[in-house]
């Protein structure tokens, strides 16, 4: 996040792209679900938020010693949303903002699938969606790398076991092994490999988005199970 304020235009652009890629969905969902904006307004507000993050640099004054970066981002977003309607009235929808091609329809499907109800804790919602976005992005990258390197069996095991949703009970290693025609030991090995790779990808993505070791560690510490 600090890197979005870098004096090096290339580094700043890369940090911004990584930031948008990782956080646009939590921001959009927050605007839609917590802020209760209409779909079109939420798209503009999301694009506007990240445009200002780059142009006005309002995310790079983050101080890891003073707050969690997620909390900082959410408060920045909250402040932006509180002030934005005045500016929005002066602009045509979509005008004045740098637009990025984002899958808003996919985000809408996820909002519908999650079935959010009223009485949501704003900070907890943002935290949960931020972590989900990071992990989802890393899973996509793992899938891409597995396909490129011919490790589709490894990803299949990982997908069947670790990405299993909560609607039914997680299958046993034996069930996964039988389904995929593998020995159980192979399932164990493939899972260990996939988790190791996923951890590496998540950390690489976090590293790309953070400006200091302190920020990087704080983000990772929170991601890997230290509950707020």
């Amino acid at each position: 996040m600090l890197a979005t304020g870098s004096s090096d235009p290339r580094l700043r652009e890369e940090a911004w792209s990584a930031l948008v890629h990782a956080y646009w969905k939590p921001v959009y969902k927050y605007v839609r679900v917590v802020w209760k904006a209409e779909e079109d307004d939420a798209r503009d507000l999301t694009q506007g938020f990240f445009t200002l993050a780059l142009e006005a640099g309002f995310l790079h004054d983050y101080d890891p010693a003073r707050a969690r970066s997620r909390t900082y981002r959410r408060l920045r977003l909250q402040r932006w949303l509180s002030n934005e309607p005045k500016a929005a009235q002066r602009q045509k929808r979509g005008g004045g903002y740098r637009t990025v091609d984002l899958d808003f329809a996919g985000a809408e499907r996820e909002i519908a699938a999650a079935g959010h109800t009223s009485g949501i804790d704003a900070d907890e919602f943002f935290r949960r969606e931020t972590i989900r976005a990071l992990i989802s992005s890393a899973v996509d990258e793992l899938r891409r790398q597995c396909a490129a390197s011919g490790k589709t069996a490894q990803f299949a095991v990982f997908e069947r076991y670790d990405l299993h949703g909560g609607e039914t009970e997680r299958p046993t290693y034996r069930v996964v092994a039988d389904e995929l025609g593998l020995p159980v030991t192979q399932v164990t090995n493939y899972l260990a490999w996939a988790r190791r790779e996923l951890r590496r990808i998540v950390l690489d993505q976090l590293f790309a988005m953070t400006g200091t070791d302190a920020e990087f560690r704080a983000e990772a510490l929170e991601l890997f199970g230290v509950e707020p």
Partner: protein
Amino acid sequence: MTWIDDDAVRHLRAVIDQPDLSDTRYVLLDTLGRGGMGTVYLARDTALDREVALKVLSLPDPDDGLARRMRAEASILARLEHPGIVPVHDAGRLPDGRVFYVMKRVRGRRLDQLDTAAMSIADLVRLARRICDPIAFAHAHRIIHRDLKPANVMIGDFGEVLVLDWGVAKVSREAQQEVERGSMGEGTPPAGQTVAGDAIGTPGWMAPEQRAGGAADADERTDVYGIAAILFFLLCGGPPPDSDDAIRGALEQRGPPLHRRLRAIVGKGLSADAAGRYASITDLASDLDRFLDGEPVAAHRDTPLERAVAWLAKYRTAVILVLTYIVLRVIFILATAD
């Protein structure tokens, strides 16, 4: 982007941080706790068929600084063979690249989890006194713990007192050279340097010089403060306040009241000015021993009345016997005077 529901996210967060123990002799059983830089897991050593505690670096480590620190901690523990310090069995890197070390699994309770309500003042002082031994042993090897607090002291099931978490210990140049002559050289910190980075210690338990950022200047008196802080916790139930006056006030207001000598010992150990503290752990331990034996302590100059009362209390039986003898003798003399 792949949609992952809450259950799968929770599961992934848990499993992707678990150490990859494939190709090792260890099998993961449970998580025992998380520290500042590492997570401690319960594992089974399949070669020896026993449970062990396995500490793994859990934070990302782009510059390898934390890995150096953890290897240094393992080296320190391996070097300090003392009944009050948990022995290390193994150390290395996991297939996922993270540094780990394996230590004895200690069953017991941390001092901050101990129910001290039913313990006498003397028992609490004895407990603090026993922490002095492993720390004095470390100091003899020119190693300063620097993070002494109740959560870093374990009372084992057999009553043994163990000092844990040497991850921010300071190693002197001489100790460093000795370690390098041994077999653990790879993991030791650079000569003459502190093991850790800038943030040394735990807020609430740091000595004033640590709070002021002078971690590299920490010496034996920093650990004197740490043990005195633990004794304060045992007596008063919380970390010591920041100023000498507030510490004195808290000790005086404690109920049931504490002996002046004990208040003086704690006050001296917690002196904001390191020069006002005991010069060594041995000095602190000696004063605690003297207090437990009912003798005058170095931290407090007794008044003549206090000395007399203490003397009478110490030799109470002998004094009673002598007085009884004198009274009987007088009665005998008076009775036989006729």
